[in-house]
Every structure is written in structure tokens, then in C-alpha cells.
């Protein structure tokens, strides 16, 4: 398998403390990589660096051998689609209009939609089950419907690489499983490379080929879920004691939270 992303000693900071430092990583073509770690461990920044939305102060982020910093946005968006954690839409665009914006890179000139654009956008809407909402405005949707609309837009972009930041946040159980099902299917049928940031360790464990565990802005462990998700690693990175056994159906590590202990005198000082 060829390397698709190569990160070499990447460092990034907004102000003083480094958000990411000494981060090296290879992402192979056609794999599903999960990025996990505690709050503030640099997961979202890593994804934005890979999408070219942030520029590293140290090191290089390379995509197919060329530095992401030098790729023009149009070329970048033909290769990579990003699903951000949250989306805001100021004007009353409809779901259909928003999903069609995913076709931007494939349109020319004044850019009225072609038959292909409509077909592909509609198909993406069906996959994400938002086709019945096509004429509704984004503001009128629930959190989960909004999120599915944004994912549909990324699917309509038709890129060989998908980056997703918390794709299952706001989603109910069925839609959580469905999203990962879609990612798996895209990966198998179209060989789409997927990098997904997740707080849900169980979903990541079940669906990802490989996990990257970040700790304080540095890669802590990389490897198959069973090597990364251990009681010791999670104690160090998340600072809590979890229970781990095997998923009864898939055999992948299953994480169970410990009993929440009351913390006396914490609130009433």
C-alpha cells in the first residue's frame, strides 16, 4: 500500500504552547485511520493541518509527495473532503443547495449545475438520508440532520480522501452505526482513505483499521485497536481507569467506563 499522507515532525501552535509537536505519521492509501485522545490533545488541529486549513510552523505535511502548503485550494479539494465538527450557515440555503456546493470543484465558469452534479448530489443525499429534506433550509434542521447534510456535501465532493471530525456527534444510535457503515462501504467499494477523529472509542475500535492515540500534542501510540486501546495507555492519556474486554460479536476491544465515584467536598468548599 502506498503512503498517501506523510507528516514529518509537524509542530503547530496558535499562540504560545505547542498544540502539536513532533508529530510524524504515515497514512496509507485505502485505510481507515481513527484519531483518538483526550480533550485538547490536538486531534482537530491535526485534521485541519491535513486539510491544509492550518499551516504548520515546524515540519511538513505531504500529500502524495507534495507539500500541502503549496497545493492550491482547488487541487486540494479534488483530493480531500473535510467534515468539520460544527457548521453554521448564515443565509437560508436549502439542504439541496448546500449539498450541491460540494460539486464546486467539478464545475466551471459561471457554474450552473450539470446533470451529473445533480445526480451525484442527490445520491449523496440518499446515502445520508437527507433527500426528503432537500427543500428545507439548513436552519430548520435538527443537529443530527445538519450534520448528515454536511457529510452528504463531503460525499458529493467525490474525493479519494475523507477527513471527518467527530462525525457521530449529535447523531442517534442508528445514525452513528450507519455513518461508520457508509465509511466502511466507501472504503471497500471506492477505496476511499478515511481519517476520522472520534471521541467514541468503541466505534473507533470497531470500525478503524488503525488508531492514532494523541497525548498532549504528541502521538502516544499508533497501531491496530487492540494494541492501542489498553488499560495502561488509556490511564496515561485520559487519566481514568477503564475496563476493557472483547466485543462479543467482533472481538475488538470494548471499553467500559468505571463506576462514577462521588467526589466529596469538590462542590461544597
Amino acid at each position, binding site marked *: 500500500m502506498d503512503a498517501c499522507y506523510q507528516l514529518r515532525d509537524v509542530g503547530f501552535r496558535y499562540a504560545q504552547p505547542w498544540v502539536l509537536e513532533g508529530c510524524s505519521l504515515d497514512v496509507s492509501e485505502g485505510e481507515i485511520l481513527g484519531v483518538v485522545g483526550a480533550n485538547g490533545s490536538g486531534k482537530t488541529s491535526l485534521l*485541519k493541518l491535513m*486539510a*491544509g*486549513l492550518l499551516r504548520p510552523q515546524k515540519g511538513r505535511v505531504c500529500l502524495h509527495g507534495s507539500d500541502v502548503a503549496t497545493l*492550491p*485550494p*482547488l487541487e*486540494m*479539494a*479534488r483530493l*480531500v*473532503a*473535510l467534515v*468539520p465538527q460544527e*457548521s*453554521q*450557515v*448564515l*443565509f*437560508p*440555503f*436549502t439542504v*439541496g*443547495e448546500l449539498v*450541491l*456546493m*460540494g460539486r*464546486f*470543484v467539478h*464545475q466551471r465558469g*459561471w*457554474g*450552473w*449545475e450539470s*446533470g*451529473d452534479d*445533480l*445526480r451525484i448530489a*442527490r*445520491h449523496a*443525499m*440518499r*446515502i*445520508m*438520508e437527507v*433527500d426528503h429534506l*432537500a*427543500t428545507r433550509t439548513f436552519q430548520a434542521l435538527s443537529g443530527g440532520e445538519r450534520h448528515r447534510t454536511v457529510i452528504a*456535501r463531503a460525499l458529493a*465532493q467525490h474525493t479519494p480522501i475523507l477527513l471527518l471530525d467527530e462525525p457521530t456527534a449529535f447523531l442517534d444510535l442508528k*445514525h452513528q452505526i*450507519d*455513518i461508520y*457503515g*457508509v465509511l466502511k*462501504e*466507501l472504503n471497500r*467499494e*471506492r477505496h476511499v482513505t478515511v481519517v476520522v477523529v472520534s471521541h467514541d472509542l468503541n466505534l473507533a475500535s470497531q470500525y478503524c483499521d488503525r488508531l492514532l492515540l494523541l497525548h498532549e500534542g504528541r502521538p502516544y501510540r499508533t497501531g491496530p485497536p487492540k494494541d492501542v486501546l489498553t488499560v495502561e495507555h488509556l490511564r496515561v492519556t485520559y487519566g481514568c481507569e477503564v475496563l476493557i474486554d472483547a466485543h462479543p460479536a467482533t472481538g475488538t476491544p470494548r471499553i467500559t467506563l468505571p463506576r462514577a465515584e462521588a467526589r466529596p467536598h469538590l462542590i461544597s468548599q
Partner: protein
Amino acid sequence: MMGVPILATAPADMSFLPALTARRRVRALTVLVAAALIGVVLCLQYGVERIPLPELARILLAPGAATDSAAGVSPAVIVWEVRLPRLLLAFLVGASLAAVGVALQALLRNPLADPYILGISSGAALGAALALQFGLAWAIGGFTAVQLCAFIFAAATIGVIYRIAVADGRIPVQTLLLAGVIINAILSALILFITSLSDSTSAFRLFFWLMGSLATLGYDGLGALAAIVLVGIGVLCAQGRNLNLLSLGDDPAQGLGLDVERVKRVIFITTALLTGAAVAVSGLIGFVGMIVPHAVRMVLGPDHRLLLPASALVGGTFLAVADTVARSLLAPAELPVGVITALCGGPFFIYLLMSHRKEAIG
């Protein structure tokens, strides 16, 4: 979701998106062009003296007859030399303000943005104030000294704001907005300073200039203005697809493939020049640049590929009609056109707001 195979294709019918059909776009623009033409012709009737439609038609269809006036001013001269240039000026200014309003609301991601928000208009006003204060009376190419000074100062202001807001090739939207607000404040203070030094005559003239008026531009000036306005609005219309993405925010737009910083530069410079040109020839006419984009967006939706040309047409027609009302209502006295734009546009906007609220409730 899993019921839908990833590789299958869906039929390409547009029924799921009625807002996007080509027929709807063409119909909307055709209606607006027709409304603009009819509006302008109807407005030509009104003024100090009413010219009935049959006579107006005769005058319009035989332009050669304009010169053979006997005693007094013939209706033909009134139509061709007084009313038509003024209506065309009103149309060009209204179209510019509305188009600029649409583009700036998307660029700044602020529905309250209007053409005067970035301080370009204050620059123009300072130029006009200085020209009035020093009593400059020359004219070049159909433009008065006041108009030319206003435009030159507007252009200089654009340079200053650009210099403040641009940091290594990027224009952060919040910085741009703040730079505009601050420049606005500084320039307003300078205008007040000049006014406080000047005698009551030039202060009064400046006051009227600031209220906005469409009285003064001949065909020479109109030609040059039309060229600027058509190119400017053309450039903005060509950015329609880009504006759609830009309105989502810098990061999402770039993620979808937009060269965000290049587009922002194009939009800023084009809207600034259009604003400078419009304010230089007409002063500060309020309301058109903020309310027309809103009203058109409520009816036709937010897609800038349709919203921009449609707003330009509506803005032009609206200001042409408003100016006709302003000069005929109390003829021969003339009301400031800004009074009419606010008094007509405001209630109409409230009506749109309330009917949409009802729709939203059910």
C-alpha cells in the same frame, strides 16, 4: 442509509430542488427586466408637469423632435434632457448599492452590512466636504469638482483600509469590518471639524449633499458612470458561485475548493470602487443597499448567482421610482430621496418579515 448502495446512481431530475431549475431563474430575471423597463417609462411621465402616456410614447419614438421647441421648454426636452438622465442615474446608483449590499453581506457574513459599512462612503463625503469648503467649481468630463474629489478620496480610503486589514496576503473579515468602523469614525470627525469651520452656506450645501440627491449628472458623466457600474456589477455577478461558498465561512469555503483570499480581494476592491462611484455622484442614499438584498433574498432565496443580478435590477428600479416620487410629490419642491426610500422600503420590509414569520409558524 445502508439500503442505498454507494455505487448506484440516482436519476438527474431536478424536481427535488425546485429552486434551482433554469426556467425559474430565467423567468425571475425576465420579469425583473420587464419591470425595470416599464417602471422607467412610467416614471418619465411624472415631474413638475405630467406628460400623458400617448405624448410620452410619441416623444420616445421620435428622438429627433427634441430640438424643435418653440416657446418655453418643450416636453421632449424635459423628457430627454431632464428626466431620462436623472432616471438613468437613479437606476445606476440603485443597482450599484443593492449589488454591493448583497456582496458585502456575504463577504462580511453579516446580514446588517450595507455599502457604507466599510467607511468608503465617509471618504467620499470628506472629499465632497473639502471641495465644497474650498468652493471648487471646475468640472471635467461631465463630473463636477465635488464628485471627482469625492471619488478620489473614496479611492484613497480604499487604499488605507486595505493597508490596515491585509496581513500577509490575507484579509481577516473581522479586522476588515473593524478597520471600516474605525475609519468611518475618524473621517466623520474630520467632516464635522470642517463643517464647524465653514460658513453656513457651504455647511448647508454639505448637509444636503450628505442627504443624497440625484439631481446633477449629464449624459457625459452618465456614460462614464454606466461603464464603471456595468463592469463592477458584471464582476460581482461572475462571483456568484464563489459568494455562495464564501458566505459559509473561510474554512468551509476553502475546504470546498475556493481560493478564499483571492475572492475576498476581488469582492472588496470591486464593492469599494462601486460604492465610491455611487456615493460620489449621489451622496449618501440610505436603505437601498441593505433592504433590497434582504427583500430579494426572502423571495428568490440566497443563491448569489440569481440573487446578485436580481437585486441589482430591483435596486435600480426601486431607486428610480423613489426618486420620481421624491421630486413629484411636493413639486416644484423636492424631497430628499432618502426619505422616500426609507418610508417606502421600511414598511414593505416589515410586511415581508411578518408574512415569512407566519409561514414559519405554519
